[in-house]
């Protein structure tokens, strides 16, 4: 067996592979035109251990469609750059619940991968949706015993279909990052 290749940082110049339209999963040509579902904006602000914005980050999302299936009728990939204030923003459809292991059902969630200068490997976390009944039994959320830490995985509604999940890389209110 040969171990997987070592990760290396994406560095500050990853924008050479930035295609800003990829932040809109419903764009013309996405393949998602005509998929029925609840249109949402997922946004948030990424800050570092001093609370300073991470202004050179690359955020990728991967999610199921409203039907709870991956890459069936809905192409669930997006990429966005953080702006000068550390803010990322995606336009997408709200995912449905996804089967977990065994007989478990996972609450609707969006997997988030963060790449940046200073991150030797990307960080992975999830955005859940506040108010979902399935959150109470979700296999990942229930692994986080501290309610304050659990809340770092739950996006809050801002009105007009906008959901916000701020991400703190380090320190007070540090986001729960997942080892996948």
């Amino acid at each position, binding site marked *: 067996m040969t171990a*997987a290749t*070592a990760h290396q940082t*994406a560095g500050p110049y990853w924008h050479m592979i930035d295609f800003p339209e990829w932040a809109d999963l419903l764009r013309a040509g996405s393949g998602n035109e005509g998929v029925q579902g609840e249109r949402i904006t997922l946004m948030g602000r990424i800050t570092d251990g001093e609370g300073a914005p991470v202004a*050179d980050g690359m955020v990728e999302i991967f999610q199921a469609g409203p039907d709870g299936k991956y*890459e069936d009728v809905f192409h669930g990939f997006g990429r966005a750059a953080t702006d000068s204030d550390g803010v990322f923003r995606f336009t997408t459809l709200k995912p449905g619940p996804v089967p977990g*292991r065994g007989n478990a059902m996972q609450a609707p969630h969006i997997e988030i991968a963060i790449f940046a200068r200073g991150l030797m490997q990307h960080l992975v976390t999830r955005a859940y949706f506040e108010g979902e009944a399935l959150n109470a039994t979700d296999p990942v959320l229930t692994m986080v015993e501290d309610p304050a830490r659990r809340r770092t995985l739950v996006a809050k509604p801002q009105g007009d279909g906008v959901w916000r999940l701020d991400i703190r890389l*380090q320190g007070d209110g540090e986001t729960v990052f997942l080892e996948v």
Partner: protein
Amino acid sequence: MSDPIPYRRPDPATQPPLDSPAYGSTHKRHPKQPLLRIPHTLTETSAPRFDASRYPAHADMSQVNGKGALGERIIVAGRITDEDGRPQRGVMVEVWQANASGRYHHPRDQHDAPLDPNFEGRARIFTDDQGNYSFVSVKPGAYPWRNHWNAWRPIHIHFGLHGAGFAQRMITQMYFPGDPLLDLDPIFLSTPDKAARDRLISKFDLEITKPEWALGYRFDMVLRGREATPFEKA
């Protein structure tokens, strides 16, 4: 429905730690809490499907509109397998790099080295059924960075890989053989295991080299494999 077979967990020595003190930008950006290890579900074992019709391939960085970029033309080729040696087909590979002078075609790169109008420095290719990929470029230049006094990055090409599971997602850097800057570079040196580190260095390859045209470098990459499947039926 049966549970998806999880990906194998990496040996930490073969991956660079998030807290890598010699690389200054990690200080305020690495989490201090331990990562929460979660069992793999469909969220981790599924992956985006990158259809070449929506994500068109572009395999030649050595020219723009038929005008050649300055620098030493190179062919980079290799094979992508998983940890068990199985070829990984249909992997979308994203590539970006500095030009031959060590300058990125990027507004935030202010290094005092010339831009080249005939070099954009990005490519996208897909592996074939045997896991092979290749692209054409020019050899990038070294450039200074401000990590420490008189710091220079060894010449490198950035690679981003999209495999069959989102848990295989990986970004890495390919280095060049014989570069004296490798032994001084905190990013390269951050991976504890020397063999794992040295696999980031491409090899000059005369078979990939094309006579009268371009030097060839081989860079093979390995994506995470799946755990053993004791109940798998033949």
